[in-house]
């Protein structure tokens, strides 16, 4: 049987989310996946025997609870365990910890700056205000400024109404927040170098920008607006690694009658008479469906699996210039035991959370300068986590799994990537951690190093960009991925996009997949199975 109502290309978390909502609406849905396993970048893989690596994305916070609820992911096995802390090691042997216990958090801030300890009240209130505002738009389709359809006008009116709930000065502050650099934004609140560096880090993850680049303050929200059970800004681990997210989604999808085919590489989306008719696999097999949804990034979708002849030239031009520069690397490390960090007093809970090793804004900015010149950062910003402390399923007893996200790593260093260069890059990261952990190098059992090249090879994310396209103003909201194509519909009837290249972008939210499903079901005049956003008064 080679005929379906809908085919979703790519079994990443957004593809599976999208497929699950379509299946829930009663469609016969097939998900085709190039790899032998599902998950895309939300994947757990045993790349070293006995260890489960969340080999790409590694923590979870933005995933929409509405989707979790609507697809019953808890019953399908997903558990997200909140993380308790984050911290930054200082070069002088001290450290700064951001604890979740409020009194300890305050005392730790006081230890570094009395003023910052008080200012954080104002900071928290302001960031929460912006989060509340933005979160309301995650599960909505962006309006098209070029359209006068009632729906678009209504949506614009809704946007305006939301903004108008702010006071006049808050409105200006919001615009400032949206257009400032994270460093300058934080300098409105904090004075201590380490505190500034600590809170800035989240704003450059996955971006091609530095802490002093305007526009990065907003990226903070992409890392702060997530919540685990109402704890805004907190991050969590998926038990079993990020693959658990994909597994739960797949299980929910299959429970609604969906089918998944792995090892099924799509060669092209077939189009006839400006209508999608199905897909052709690399094997030559043809599968037909009137609805074809691509979870691939916008570049890959339009430039690789669609025929230029089927597309408007303007769109091809846009796709060619879609900004999708990768800037991140990743190390997955199997450890023989828990590394020691002498800077931390015995019994410190801070190894349980995010660990960073960059304690000044200048160091962060210099890390970016290297990337601008197509070099990996000599002194990178790292986000290290040892989730096996919580989750015994990730490593054998007494052993540990460490995940190190590395900013910045270039797509194409001078002369291109080689295996030797990749190892040098990995060594840079290991050396940085070893500066703070003398026994770290002795504990290394297996180190898997990923540059944008490896990320692209495995997940298909063009240039290894973790967000399926940079989160800059030209690629946000109604500009994402391209102006005029931000409502999940492709240029060909029956063809849709559901990946993070679309609004609201990357970060394992599931929102693009759900939003695309809403538009598809609308076009098919099927009942909407996607959830409304939880009210956030």
């Amino acid at each position, binding site marked *: 049987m080679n005929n379906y109502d809908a085919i979703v290309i790519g079994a990443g978390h957004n593809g599976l989310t999208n497929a699950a909502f379509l299946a829930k609406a009663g469609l016969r849905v097939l998900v085709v996946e190039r790899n032998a396993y599902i998950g895309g970048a939300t994947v757990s893989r045993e790349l070293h025997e006995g260890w489960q690596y969340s080999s790409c994305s590694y923590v979870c916070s933005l995933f929409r609870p509405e989707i979790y609820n609507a697809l019953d992911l808890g019953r399908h096995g997903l558990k997200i365990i909140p993380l308790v802390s984050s911290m930054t090691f200082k070069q002088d042997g*001290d*450290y700064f*910890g951001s*604890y979740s*216990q409020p*009194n*300890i958090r*305050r*005392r*730790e801030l*006081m*230890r570094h700056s*009395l*003023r*910052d*300890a*008080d*200012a954080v*009240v*104002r900071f*928290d*209130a302001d960031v*929460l*205000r912006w989060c*509340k505002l933005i979160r309301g738009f995650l599960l909505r389709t962006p309006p098209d400024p070029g359209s006068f359809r009632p729906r678009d006008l209504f949506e614009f009116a809704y946007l305006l109404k939301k903004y108008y*709930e*702010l*006071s006049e*000065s*808050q409105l200006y502050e919001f615009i400032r927040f949206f257009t400032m650099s994270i460093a300058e934004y934080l300098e409105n609140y904090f004075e201590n170098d380490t505190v500034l560096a600590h809170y800035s880090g989240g704003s450059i993850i996955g971006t091609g920008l530095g802490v002093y680049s305007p526009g990065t303050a907003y990226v903070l929200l992409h890392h702060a607006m997530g919540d685990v059970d109402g704890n805004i800004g907190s991050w969590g681990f998926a038990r079993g690694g990020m693959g658990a997210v994909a597994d739960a989604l797949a299980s929910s999808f299959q429970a609604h009658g969906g089918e998944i085919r792995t090892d099924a590489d799509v060669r092209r989306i077939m189009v006839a008479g400006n209508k999608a008719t199905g897909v052709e696999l690399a094997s030559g097999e043809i599968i037909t469906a009137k609805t074809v949804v691509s979870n691939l990034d916008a570049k890959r979708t339009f430039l690789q699996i669609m025929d230029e002849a089927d597309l408007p030239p303007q769109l091809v031009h846009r796709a060619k210039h879609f900004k999708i520069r990768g800037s991140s690397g990743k190390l997955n490390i199997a450890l023989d035991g828990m590394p020691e960090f002498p800077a931390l*007093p*015995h*019994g*410190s*809970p801070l190894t349980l959370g995010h660990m960073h090793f960059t304690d000044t804004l200048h160091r962060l900015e210099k890390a970016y300068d290297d990337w601008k010149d197509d070099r990996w950062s000599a002194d990178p910003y790292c986000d290290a986590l040892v989730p096996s402390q919580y989750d015994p399923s990730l490593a054998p007893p007494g052993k540990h799994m460490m995940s190190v996200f590395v900013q910045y790593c270039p797509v194409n260093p001078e002369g291109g990537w080689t295996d030797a260069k990749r190892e040098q890059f990995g060594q840079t990261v290991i050396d940085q951690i070893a500066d703070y952990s003398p026994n770290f190098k002795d504990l290394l059992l297996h180190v898997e190093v990923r540059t944008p090249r490896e990320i692209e090879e495995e997940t298909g994310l063009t240039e290894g960009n973790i967000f399926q396209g940079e989160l800059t103003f030209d690629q946000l909201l109604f500009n994402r991925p391209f102006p005029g194509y931000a409502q999940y519909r492709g240029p060909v009837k029956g063809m849709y996009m559901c990946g993070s290249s679309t609004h609201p972008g990357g970060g394992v939210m599931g929102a693009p997949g759900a939003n695309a499903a809403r538009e598809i079901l609308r076009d098919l005049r099927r009942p909407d199975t996607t959830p409304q956003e939880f009210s956030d008064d």
Partner: protein
Amino acid sequence: MSIPNDHFRQAIQHTPFHARLAALTQTEEWTVWNGCMAPRVLDKLSTEYFAVRSSCSVMDMSPMEKYRITGADAYRFLDRLLTRDLSALRPGRVTYVVWCNDEGKLIDDGTLFQFGDGDYRLCSQHHQFDWLMTSAMGFDVNIEVETHDVAALAVQGPTSYSVLTEAGIAGLEDLRPFGIANLSCQDFPVVVSRTGYTGDLGYEVWVSPENALPLWDAIFSVKSRYDVHAIGLSTLEMVRIEAGFIMPGFDFNTAESTVRANFDRSPYEVGLGWVVNLDKGQFTGRKALVAESKRPAKRRLTKITIEGNKPVGEAFIYNKKGGKLVGEIKCAVWSPILKANIALADIEYIGGALPKKLWARLDYQRELKWMSAWAECRPTNKPFYSPDHRSATPPSRL
């Protein structure tokens, strides 16, 4: 103040009086006040309450935030910070003050102590160092956090004067309300101010932390002759409502922590218009408050008495039974001395005036079953309870 890098081992700090409180408590009902362990109730609420109203209560108020403000511009700085006209404040005097942000919304309230020329202490409920430093730009002023460098006891109640005098603090007879005296207790210095949060006769005694326990012991040494009773925050909540005092962060949301638009409050809106002086010159929020003072009032935090004896918790207020929602109760208590339910309620004005009738919808439990009842509310302008002995100088020796 130096904080060790392993402070995480103890999330909640102890005040200098902790050893005595820990020895006294029968309930172990602790709460956290500004990072410190503070008792809610030590033995029995009604006993503690009547200590305030009929004899002498002692409360540890060390966790209160305290800032020392000195320097050539200290007065000008405070004048620009605070809404109140400070020109009448003199060394040795205390005044109640509030401060606002640029939009004229309340950030906090507190008491301002003037020790000498250019030497002040500001006490507040919430963390204010960041705001004080922000406000200090352009002033030659030095601001130090002395929250943990000064311990304090509130000694309040009709016999508080006698108790302190008996305890060895001589010279209180001339101390008028809102006065400060540098005295000694036994062999160590104390600063005593005739201030408090109870609406009764009372003093606050300020000492350096190493003299905290000797002070406590001196006061409690007279227990054989006077009923001296340590109290917790639950009692304070009762008596401060009786006295008509408001608590920022509880009765209204403080501006710096407000997320939603219009969830903060101006001094006028909480009935503190009397501490705002629009004619004194510039202070932060003046422009906004001038504009607000010209508009009809939108809402007021109003003192109300609620008929009957049903328990009052959080409740909505309507302009008639089943009528229009006009407000909500922010804090309420059954007053043992008035035998009445009293409350502070945030009430929306209709046409610039308080609605003529106010009805509270009370939801309460009886043996775990929820009940609902209407109760009429009567507004009042005066403190619910303000005894004459509160302000007599010298206080009568009891």
